[in-house]
């Protein structure tokens, strides 16, 4: 009898825990990563990552409202509002580490804070594009560089939705994208994360990496 009660209550608890909806992730970002390559004395060199974010429609309106900026009667941003909003976004993006996490082999590649930020509204969605310069340009001839497209705490769920491009001296390199491959372990973890509120931070503050889409640069 007692065992049955416990099982029932446990089942009820799972129902509530599993169905939590004010959960991580709270907002969804499509977009991707492009690579900016230069030719330095015949050596392909990675100078920067060009990052594109396209926020979902609801989060777009919330972010604009939180920044006290509104859409005009065409559903777009007036130039004054766009400038004010861009200014706020510059400070904000720095807190989110720019959502690009690059590695060369086992070593993380140091990236500068986002710059050249541009803001636009595309079909009701906020589009942000910005560059992350490498702290030190990296010779990539005959090398591979992998970039994870994620935000560490998984407040924002990022998905690569555009093909990765190579800009600049593009002949020697090609870029490919790899979508996150879900497995049962990540499903369990996602169920746990769904219990976190908007103001909460998960215990593992680098949990976003576990669900990341990746972009790979390969150079001859």
């Amino acid at each position, binding site marked *: *009898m007692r065992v*049955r*009660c416990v*099982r*029932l*209550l446990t*089942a*009820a*608890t*799972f*129902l*509530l*825990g*599993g*169905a*939590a*909806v*004010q*959960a991580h992730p709270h907002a*969804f970002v499509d977009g991707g990563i492009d690579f900016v390559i230069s030719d330095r004395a015949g050596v392909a060199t990675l100078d920067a990552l060009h990052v594109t974010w396209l926020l*979902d*429609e*609801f989060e*777009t*309106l*919330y972010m*604009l*409202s*939180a920044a*006290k*900026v*509104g*859409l005009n*009667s*065409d*559903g777009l941003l007036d130039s004054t509002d766009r400038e004010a909003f861009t200014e706020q976004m510059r400070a904000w993006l720095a807190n989110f580490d720019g959502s690009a996490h690059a590695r060369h082999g086992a070593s993380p590649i140091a990236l500068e804070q986002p710059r050249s930020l541009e803001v636009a509204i595309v079909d*009701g969605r906020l589009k942000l594009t910005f560059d992350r310069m490498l702290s030190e340009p990296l010779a990539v001839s005959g090398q591979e560089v992998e970039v994870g497209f994620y935000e560490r705490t998984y407040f924002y769920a990022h998905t690569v939705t555009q093909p990765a491009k190579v800009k600049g001296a593009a002949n020697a390199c090609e870029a490919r994208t790899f979508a996150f491959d879900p497995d049962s372990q990540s*499903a369990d973890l996602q*169920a746990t994360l*769904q*219990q*976190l*509120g*908007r*103001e*909460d931070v998960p215990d593992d503050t680098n949990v976003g990496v576990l669900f990341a889409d990746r972009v790979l640069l390969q150079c001859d």
Partner: protein
Amino acid sequence: MRLALTLGLVLVLGVAVFSAVDMQALAQWAMARQREFQNAMAGSVRGLRTGEAGAWAGLLAAAAAYGFVHAVGPGHGKYLIGGVGVGSSVSARRLVSLALISSLMQSLWAIVLVYGGLALLAYSAHELTAFAEGVLAPASYLAVAAVGGVLAWRGLRALAVVMRTPDHSTEHHCGCKGHGPTPDDVANLHSVKDSMMLITSVAIRPCTGAIFLLIITWNMDIRLAGAVAVIVMGLGTAGLTTLVAVSSVVARGVALASAHGHGVASTVLAAFQFISGVAVIWISVLLLRLALGI
């Protein structure tokens, strides 16, 4: 023995229902729909701003649908409504009314909080969100746990009375009082105080989707649309809690019909009340721990 069999059967049925549904899949489904309806609301809000035909209807439809799927998650009092339905002799009609009023009060409170907070106190969107999640959500869980405590205490007291009565199997046969509480005597939320307690505990925490929508509509100067949409969102939430209310009362009715045949209805109802009270406390404490990160 009969009591154990009856209760056991109901509990096993309950576990079977929970086990038959893939909770994770349900949660993922609810989240995906929420995202869909949130974006539909956003599209309609933009439509209102740009004078698009049908934007009002689109916003209200999306808000109602959002309210329903959002209520699949915790914090909307559905577990409290279900617990009360199983563990008291409240009628389905009364419980449905309580579910509806709770949801509407939750919506009204969201409107007062956000529009009042923005207009009178110059709160920022971040401050409002943080207040709702950091203060009001835990307060609601505590209040719901308190209602669960009342349920459990009354159930325990009723059980004690039933057990002290020499021949409690004769209830309803002699037509007199004094043989222990009948199902109607057990807490049935007849009093205004009980109802207010239940409604307040649910309504104290506004739905996060409602807060975001109101922040958006306030900023975009379509405030009436935002307020109406949030009321309709509350009706969508009430749609789900109403289903829970009716299901819980039916489940209790089935169990009691069987128990009544064995002359142990009072005992079963008292036991249900105690168990559902404890379940409500347990779930509230779990949610409180999650909310406080402890």
